[in-house]
């Protein structure tokens, strides 16, 4: 048996995804992507609109399978053709839209009860038990939003930022092998986005979570994370980590993009939006 540490948390091997196959609208959203995500990686993924970032996350989460020949291994388990709900055992997710990650009609504690059972068999035990309630309070306190005092409030009564922070806790309360974040602060106002981003960074570091975070914001991509991956036309065109990632600047990114994509960048705002968002 190889040492657990040497197995990547996630391996994508030659993963492609074609939409609207054999029609005029055929799109190759992913084009032979191979990517290893190691335990403890904190990856920021950037790329222009339609470059395949969300598709990449969706394939990892099992929303749809990749084309034949591609493989997804999570901790050496082949999950390529398993349904989405079976990927959930390994994958925690926060979506862009605050209403997707949580159930508006259920209370905060009921939402968290759904989350603590991610990847486990659900039974006939009481969903919200006393001991769970205590652990929910502990999990919510660090957010500093007072949600720990509103456990029985329906989630529909929370603000977008509060719902996104709750989604984050829900995705991480049972430690995922990989945490997927798809522009999870893009739908929030700049100030709330900043708060939720800081919370994300805090949780990822505190729990030493392996994370793959898509962002449109180059400043976020440079400031946060230990590795940076750039997507373009369904391919991974740039991948840096460690000291090289830490030393990156926006001009470096533009240069890398021009070189790898072989295209001129007329205006950074058209492809890699650096404004808040």
């Amino acid at each position, binding site marked *: 048996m190889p040492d657990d540490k040497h197995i990547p948390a996630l391996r994508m091997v030659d993963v492609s995804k074609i939409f609207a196959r054999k029609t005029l609208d055929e799109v190759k959203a992913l084009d032979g992507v191979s990517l290893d995500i190691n335990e403890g990686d904190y990856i920021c993924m950037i790329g222009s609109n339609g470059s395949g970032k969300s598709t990449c996350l969706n394939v990892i989460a099992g929303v749809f399978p990749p084309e034949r020949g591609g493989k997804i291994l999570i901790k050496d388990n082949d999950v390529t053709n398993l*349904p989405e*709900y079976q990927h959930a055992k390994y994958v925690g997710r926060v979506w862009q839209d605050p209403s997707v*990650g*949580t159930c508006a009609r*259920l209370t905060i504690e009921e939402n968290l009860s*759904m989350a603590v*059972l*991610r990847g486990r068999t659900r039974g006939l035990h*009481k*969903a919200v038990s006393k001991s769970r309630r205590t652990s929910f309070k502990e999990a919510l306190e660090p957010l500093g939003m007072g949600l720990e005092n509103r456990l029985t409030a329906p989630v529909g009564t929370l603000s977008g930022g509060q719902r996104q922070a709750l989604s984050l806790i829900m995705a991480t309360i049972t430690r995922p092998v990989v945490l997927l974040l798809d522009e999870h602060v893009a739908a929030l106002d700049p100030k709330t986005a900043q708060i939720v981003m800081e919370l994300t960074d805090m949780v990822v570091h505190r729990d030493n979570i392996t994370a793959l975070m898509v962002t449109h914001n180059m400043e976020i991509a440079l400031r946060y994370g230990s590795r940076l991956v750039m997507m373009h036309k369904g391919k991974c065109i740039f991948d840096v980590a460690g000291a090289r990632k830490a030393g990156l600047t926006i001009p470096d990114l533009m240069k890398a993009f021009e070189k790898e994509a072989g295209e001129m960048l007329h205006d950074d705002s058209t492809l890699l939006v650096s404004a808040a968002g």
Partner: protein
Amino acid sequence: MDSVVNALTVSLYEGLVFGLLSIGLFMTFRVLDFPDLTMEGSFPLGGAVAATLIARGGLNPLLATLVALFAGAAAGAVTGLLNTKLRITALLSGLIVMVGLYSVNLNIMSGANISLLRENTIFKMVGNALNISGIWLSIVVAAIAAAIFFFILRWFLQTEIGLALRASGNNEQMVRGMGADTNKNIVITTAIANALVATAGALIAQNQGFSDVGMGIGVVVVGLAAVIIGEALFRPRTITQILLAAFGGTFIYRLFITVALRVGMPPQDLRLVTAALVVLALAIPFARKKLAGEWLPPATRS
């Protein structure tokens, strides 16, 4: 005075027994957001199965009712499977099973109806044991059945599985993201809902002394009216309140209909009055907000 008491007691019995049907409807329409028409067929299915087993098979009425419950669950499961395995829309899946059940019910009874007048029923069993009869006997039996299902469902909907069912109707994406199989949840819920409806059918057939293939006509509208009235009047939030509101709504709906008939409403206007009642109940929350000067969002289809 007597007629007031009589109207109240009859409505109480009907509120309790049709309350089971309302809760079944609530499970699919509200909890799962699955407009399920199966119940127009599973309601008479419950009556047909129980009546046939009692009258032709000489089975113990309690056991016969239990078999009716499972028959309803099976019918509901078929609807759920059509929807999840064959991807047939919810509305169409229920419609298909409802249509098919009409023939199934005729076959079970080998005819359009079965009389239970001379047979043993749950009501007669309880009546003999407690030495009561008439409307109070009906109420006692209905209350026992209502209480049993109330406590089971109140417990079940707060278990881990029950919570996943409730979440499935609200946000399927999140439920799958949390590792629960939404397809399985749909089948479980349609099965439970129609089990309740069939049980109501089995009890009502035993109380009225016959089962008829046409007894399911309109039950969806009636159940919907009851659920909507319950929601509008009681504005329930917790599971306990929601279940009680379904019984309460059914009682009030039945009371209204009973009184309307007694003060001389021609029976042919029954459906029209039901329709008007549903509109009225739907208008209450709207009017409440409007009167309070609240801003109202533009109309949507849901």
